[in-house]
């Protein structure tokens, strides 16, 4: 999975500022949003934090995770909770067996009930929870049509054609893929990197949007492809439109989190507040480039009149390491870990309650009303789990 700093950090900063946060608050929101892509078990080990708060996995961690039942559930808990929020856990297709529907129902889509739950969970929990929720929200648009679980029958995809919109009409160009994760995508020649298809039911090659490479993360990309779950039909993914919706929905969501709206409604986008920046935002979104960080950064600095520092993953590490055990939960990272554990628990629990054991059997942390943050982090540290996994109660 790619680290899309341009949207998760800089664009989120811009949205936060437009929503009414100050420059410093917007930086913290943006940092938390981007940090979701950096909070791995490796990082948490370094700061001696609770491993259960991991919000992503490195390639090496994924490759080392055995794809047995426990490993599969762990992968699904992380990726479905933070990067591929399921759109409809109760989707129904006639005459499909449950084992198929368990994977189908994990397909990510925007404006789902889980998104509403995510924002309700983040309300009143601080800036860090807000940033985390914005990452989740943005990814529901970018990563739609893919599922956060290794699934050959859902996440495989083929026949990619990039659509170039010209004055004479739409032009389609076949996208070529190669399997070299080190080489950057070549936008000129239309050569992109994706994961290899090994025709295995549960392979990390079929996790998320691996088969589409970085295409979902490029805001300029408009492409047509055939997803595995769509019965040979093709779908057009219009990233400029989706990313714009994500941006406007983030503004609306952050206003909700700030208390300006009483409740969060699906399919509402704050277009009014970006009216004067509409063309600027569109031009950034549609510009054909591997990273739009510079453009978003320039826009953000114009908005606030303040400099936006580059993202530093270790920014809050010293604060966390130097804090005493009782102060850790009150640090930036401590609050982020709490938010992450809560989000993972909520999503995994909702998946389980829908009758789907793909994310394991998970206790809903938010039903533990008397448990305060400090105790929660201590327990999470000890057990290494967000809740009780019915199969394996030991630390791994």
């Amino acid at each position, binding site marked *: 999975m790619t680290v899309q700093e341009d949207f998760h950090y800089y664009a989120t900063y811009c949205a936060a500022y437009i929503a009414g946060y100050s420059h410093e608050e917007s930086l913290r929101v943006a940092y938390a949003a981007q940090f979701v892509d950096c909070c791995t078990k490796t990082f948490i080990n370094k700061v001696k934090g609770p491993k259960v708060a991991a919000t992503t996995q490195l390639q090496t961690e994924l490759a080392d995770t055995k794809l047995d039942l426990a490993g599969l559930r762990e992968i699904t808990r992380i990726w479905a909770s933070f990067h591929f929020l399921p*759109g*409809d856990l109760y*989707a*129904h*297709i006639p005459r499909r067996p449950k084992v198929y529907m368990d994977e*189908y129902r994990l*397909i990510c*889509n925007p404006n*789902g009930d889980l998104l509403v739950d995510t924002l309700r969970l983040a309300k009143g929990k601080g800036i860090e929870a807000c940033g985390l929720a914005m990452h989740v929200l943005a990814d529901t648009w970018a990563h739609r049509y893919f599922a956060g679980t290794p699934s050959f029958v859902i996440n495989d995809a083929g*026949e990619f054609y990039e659509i170039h919109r010209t004055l004479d009409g739409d032009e389609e160009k076949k996208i070529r893929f190669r399997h070299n994760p080190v080489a950057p995508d070549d936008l000129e020649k239309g050569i992109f990197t994706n994961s290899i298809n090994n025709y295995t039911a549960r392979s990390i090659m079929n996790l998320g949007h691996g088969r589409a490479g970085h295409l979902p993360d490029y805001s300029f990309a408009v492409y047509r492809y*055939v997803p595995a*779950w*769509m*019965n*040979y*039909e*093709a*779908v057009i993914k219009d990233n400029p439109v989706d990313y714009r919706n994500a941006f406007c929905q983030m503004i609306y969501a952050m206003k909700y989190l700030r208390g300006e709206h009483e409740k969060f409604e699906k399919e509402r986008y704050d277009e009014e507040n970006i009216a004067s920046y509409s063309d600027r935002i569109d031009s950034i979104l549609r510009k054909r480039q591997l990273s739009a960080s510079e453009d978003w950064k320039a826009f953000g600095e114009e908005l606030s009149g303040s400099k936006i520092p580059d993202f530093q993953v270790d920014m809050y590490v010293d604060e966390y390491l130097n804090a005493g055990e009782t102060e850790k939960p009150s640090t930036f990272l401590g609050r982020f870990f709490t938010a992450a554990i809560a989000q993972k628990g909520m999503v995994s629990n909702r998946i389980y309650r829908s009758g789907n054991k793909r994310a394991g059997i998970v206790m809903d942390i938010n039903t533990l009303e008397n448990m305060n943050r400090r105790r929660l982090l201590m327990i999470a540290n000890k057990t290494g789990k967000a809740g009780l996994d019915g199969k394996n109660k030991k630390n791994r």
Partner: protein
Amino acid sequence: MNGQALGEMSLDARIRKMRSYLLYGGAAFIILGLWDGIKTGLYMYFHPAEALEEFYSGDQLQNYDESMYYTIMVVIILAFFLIFFTLRVYIGLKAVSVARGRNTKARVYVVLTVLYTIGTVYTGIDEILHPVVREAHEAHLINFIIETSSLLVMIIIIVSSVSLWKLDKQKAASQAQGG
């Protein structure tokens, strides 16, 4: 929400489906041919008497020359393998080519597939009704399973090829109307 896309299939989707069946079917047909060829060769090599009975009548069998026999056997085995495997490779490659949208007017491979299918069914029924090696039930089971696998793939190739022709015609007609 996701189910909106799963109503009646569009023409393009049906074409994609048939192409997919044909593409993988062609490759599978070639690979399965390996077992068919090796099985036929081994049968003729290890059951020479029964194999000979298929080619020579009773009187001729009385006076056969051993070295001549082996020469003939080697030639026949090689010929069988080459002919049938080549046929399979031809059918398989044509199917793959049509599936990829090249050579869409190819028809000969379908006719050959139909003939191959008829031949397979005939020899299968003949083997059941008049088994050459009467006690080798295991051999019959092996034969039956391998032949059935090939038969299934052949039927898929035939059905998807014919469907693809019809769908391509429909698409051309609708494009002509639209154009």
